[in-house]
């Protein structure tokens, strides 16, 4: 029984590798590009580049409001700690 299970596990691992390996590079590159963009947003202002994301995130406010409210309550803050985020 253990031998059958071992074989099945090896087969699953082989199948997994068969699925993943041809596109590992393409997916990793796409992820790396997203990460690079993220880093740029995080460090843009430190490098003297105006951060467009800061402005555009205003548009996200209505979408984030509810999640933000739940989050700050979970963190032990009864009211919104941010002036710009008046959820409650």
């Amino acid at each position, binding site marked *: 029984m253990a031998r059958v299970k071992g074989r099945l596990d090896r087969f699953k691992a082989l199948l997994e590798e068969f*699925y993943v390996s041809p596109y590992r590079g*393409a997916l990793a590159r796409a992820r790396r590009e997203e990460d690079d963009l993220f880093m740029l947003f995080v460090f843009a202002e430190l490098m003297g580049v105006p951060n467009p994301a800061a402005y555009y995130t205003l548009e996200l406010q209505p979408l984030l409001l509810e999640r933000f409210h739940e989050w700050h309550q979970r963190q032990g803050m009864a009211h919104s700690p941010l002036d710009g985020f008046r959820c409650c």
Partner: protein
Amino acid sequence: MNAAVLAVIGLTMIFLGYRFYSKFIAEKIYQLDPDFVTPAHAQRDDIDYLPTNRVVLWGHHFTAVAGAAPIIGPGIAVIWGWLPAFLWVVIGTMFFAGVHDFGAVWASVRNKAKSVGSLTGDVVSPRARTLFMVVVFFLLMMVNAVFGVAISDAFQETPSSVIPAWTAVIVAVIIGVLIYRMHVPILWPTVVGTVILYAVIYLGEAVPISLSAGSFGLPVGAQWILILFLYAGIASLLPVWLLLQPRDYINGIQLFVGLGLLYGAVLIANPTIVAPAINPDLPASAPPIFPLLFVTIACGAISGFHGLVGSGTTSKQLNKETDARFVGYLGSSGEGALALVAIIAATAGFASLADWQVMYSEFGNGGMAAFVQGGARVVASGVGISEQFAATLLTVMAVLFAGTTMDAGVRLQRYIVQEWGTIYDIPALQNGYVATGMAVTACLLLAFGAGGASGEGGMLIWPLFGTTNQLLAGLTLMVISVMLVKLGRPVRYTLIPMVFITVAALGAALVQLMTLYREGGILYPLLWIDVAIVLLAILVMLEASSAFLRERRAAAAGAAA
């Protein structure tokens, strides 16, 4: 002739080729070294460069190279009789394809996993590299056009395959989401997806789909081709994890299931080959067997496309240099096995010689249709399912292979157009949508120009596709040969196949010039594509001889000093 005997003889010969000839090539010619540090280790980045299990790599090489082409090519080429096609597939796999694929992996591994295109620039000349890129562009354009026409024909021929074939796209997307987004372990999506794929065939039979002629003022073939290219364009723009990756995977599974099913059925049903060994009653449209046989069957005997696969991804993941033999040679042997069973289906799956002759009343007929019709008969009598069900099953399988190649082909062409945009600084071409639009338009024009839309030109474009494919194989063999001269090793094992295949390609292109002129006159678009191929073939030969002589002289001068 008994089909099971033929299958056993063919498979045994291919196996002997792997067992003995590839061993000889590995030890004496490429001289593989188990201690050589492969790029997967030396340049390891865990993204592109990563040592990978050789069985997985073999599976990839095999499933990437074996698709619709080794089905369609032999399906057309048996018009000259089963014997020439059989001999070319078996001998081609043993002495041409194996050495070529294996060599492409080896050459790339020995050169920091560079692609054959880059190697052509380094080893031969920058001019040869440009030539290589042009041949690749032609090849991709033809691959997409030819498979667009083939799928359109298959949908018209077997309307019950329409729903199952498109369901496969939905199944692939669901598998992609389950695995990538929801992290479901792979086994269950694989099993359930495969079962759904086969179960939907019943639905396809209950609800066959036929487009009505004249919608939008277009014949049915043209409508399908338009739909297919629209789909391929959209598919090539989607993230790879959503469609391309799961589709490739499903295809791989289908290939193993299909091969098992077909060979199992041949061995159980043991049908008799009704086609003649050498066809004495060739239709007037049939071109001379030499050189056309050697371009009609490209994939399945030798195909330049394999070099792109071997040197593109395989070489970056090879754990040990000695694995190149298993991955490259045995990978191409798998494709030879598929071509072999396609020959058997297209020659033994008919009730009588007269039936077979009806199918092969004209050159370019047969192809996928003969594989489906003949294969269905063999599978039905071997496995005990209905002939109609088997026909739908085989059509879906072949359509899936061709469809995936189209998706990937359009995507690759988009990259080429975007690269041109960067090189020549044209921002519009760098845009993904513009580049995809251009790629799709070029292929559509070719498919329509070839007469595929009306169904009249049909597979006239097929030998042109094979010719371009063989030119690419010639270029890859040239790179390997020049490398061998530089290393002072015997070159005849790669040089003879190179000369043979390039001469055959040039000869075929010249023969087709006359055929195409007869078909469509001086303004026929395919005629001008053929003219370009003739020029390319001549340039390849000139480049090859100049590079070869240069290295020979350098080697002689080195020896004298």
